[in-house]
């Protein structure tokens, strides 16, 4: 990463006794698409609102190009934002909405007209400038909101769950649009969502928020392959957790025993664990191998359900201790043919694909 463009330094926000954001630190590169991913109440939206200037942090600083933003009021920050709800000005036409930030800046009329045309072209809504917001669909309104937020060439564009009010198909369509517009304009985007799929589809990097802190920042594949906390492992991709006993631990690796019958060595360890302590073993359904043949190195389980999901088949299993483990296999996989509920099978996994989370 080149010299940090936007720096968030130890941002905190407390509402009385409630801490919404604990200590958020983040460097964002110019032109990056960074997503704040987390459940509601994790502090992601509050952080975004602090960037917009609608909330004042109780501590910390935000630097844009090395200069603090906090003393600048919202309307002078020159930041663009697309909101969760539809925020087009209802009494103005689409064209007037896009022209609004330019008129506020007292640009010459010819320049405004040219920019409005350029923006309508960018969001592919040419010919809609005379429509009123109420005459447009939700997806179109959010595209106009995007055009309005980009019309004044802001250095940073904030997006607060802009697609959450749209249905799934439309959402995917506009995700493509947002990606294209990001590539075309090279604007730095900070995007808030609770939808992991949306985050993975759009972002260069993802910051996973939990309880007011960032648990982990990284690209989608990094978060998936190497989750730093149990929360990240649960949030990105599918995962199951088995209670296990730590046999030995050291150098970020652990040897563990599961269900008293099986030990596995050299699994990546996160958090602290020592010999004899309890921990949780994370396994991903798509990384488990299922075998009908008994084997010493496999974990014995019984099949509790088989679900056909198009190109995948989902096999639900139970360990001897009663823990649930899911296995996902491609349709037509030889291990599934003739498999029935109640069958005894053996599961194997690669130590590198599993993770142990200590206390």
């Amino acid at each position: 990463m080149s010299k940090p463009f936007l720096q968030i330094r130890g941002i905190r926000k407390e509402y009385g006794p409630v801490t919404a954001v604990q200590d958020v630190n983040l460097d964002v590169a110019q032109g990056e698409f960074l997503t704040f991913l987390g459940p509601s109440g994790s502090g992601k939206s509050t952080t975004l609102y602090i960037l917009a200037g609608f909330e004042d942090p109780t501590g910390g600083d935000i630097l844009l190009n090395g200069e603090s933003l906090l003393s600048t009021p919202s309307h002078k920050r020159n930041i663009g934002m697309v909101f969760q709800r539809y925020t087009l000005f209802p009494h103005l036409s689409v064209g007037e909405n896009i022209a609004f930030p330019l008129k506020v800046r007292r640009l010459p009329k010819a320049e405004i007209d040219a920019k409005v045309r350029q923006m309508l072209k960018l969001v592919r809504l040419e010919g809609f400038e005379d429509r009123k917001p109420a005459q447009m669909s939700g997806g179109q309104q959010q595209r106009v909101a995007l055009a309005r937020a980009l019309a004044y060439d802001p250095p940073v564009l904030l997006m607060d769950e802009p697609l959450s009010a749209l249905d799934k198909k439309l959402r995917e369509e506009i995700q493509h649009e947002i990606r294209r517009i990001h590539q075309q304009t090279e604007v730095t985007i900070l995007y808030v969502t609770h939808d992991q799929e949306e985050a993975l589809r759009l972002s260069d990097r993802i910051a996973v928020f939990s309880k007011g802190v960032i648990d982990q920042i990284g690209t989608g594949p990094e978060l998936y392959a190497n989750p730093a906390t149990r929360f990240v492992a649960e949030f990105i991709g599918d995962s199951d957790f088995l209670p296990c006993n730590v046999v030995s631990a050291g150098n970020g690796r652990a040897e563990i025993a599961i269900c008293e019958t099986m030990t596995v060595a050299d699994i990546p360890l996160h958090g602290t664990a020592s010999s004899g302590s309890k921990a949780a073993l994370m396994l991903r359904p798509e990384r488990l191998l299922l075998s009908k043949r008994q084997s010493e190195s496999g974990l014995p389980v019984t099949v509790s359900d088989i679900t056909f999901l198009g190109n995948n088949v989902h096999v639900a299993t139970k360990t001897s201790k009663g823990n649930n483990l899911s296995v996902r296999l491609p349709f037509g996989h030889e291990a599934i043919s003739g498999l029935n509920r109640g069958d005894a099978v053996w599961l194997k996994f690669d130590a590198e694909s599993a993770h142990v989370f200590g206390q």
Partner: protein
Amino acid sequence: MLLNLNRLGWWKLVLFGITVLTTAFLLLPILFIAALSFGSSQWLIFPPPSWTLRWYQELFADPRWLASAWTSFQIAIIVTVLSVLLGLATSFGLTRGRFAFREGLKALFLTPMILPVVVLAVALYAFFLKIGLNGTLTGFVISHLVLALPFSILSIGNALEGFDKSIEDAAVLCGASPLEAKVRVTLPAISHGIFSAAIFSFLTSWDEVVVAIFMSSPTLQTLPVKVWATLRQDLTPVVAAASTLLILLTVLLMVLVAVVRKGLKS
């Protein structure tokens, strides 16, 4: 629909009859007054023996009637402006503010609507007697403002509740100062509420008689007070003419409200 009119059979006729009777009950007194104002009888005989515009001529020839109409109009206009401005400020405070007793304060602002007008009139009269505001334009304006403000707060407050604050926030991020965002975005978006507030404030003052009787002096009285005073002295059809004009203005304003509402919606 729960109530299917086509399946009601002869009940439909009953309902129709009730509707006609209710409408007649509401409208007849008004039509009666209007008819009398054009009647030739000096004693307000109904039905009028013949028709004349004489009472209207007398009305417009009498400077006292015109003076009271002008007084009413002045007061109503000032009350309208102040009521909308104060209503706007109050509504923003009540809707956006986060403070203790907000709900209580909201209810307090609406009390003039439920308080008996006579009680309010006596209280205002006693108070204004002390500070010498009885019989003055200021006194009229203040007392009518007390009556009109709840309507402003209600209609502007409702419009503001229904307006998503994010839209104003969006305008601020677009570069408009908080005040500019309110003037250029929020006010136009809640204009229907402001318009209703203005009309209701105007009518509250224009039609008001109880408080006005207490406030008026021989030299300063509003049109409703003049109608009332004239009725007590001599029963002349000029009163009917004045009342008809009062009603006409009210109806015109109501029609204007309906038309503008429709225009704002589309």
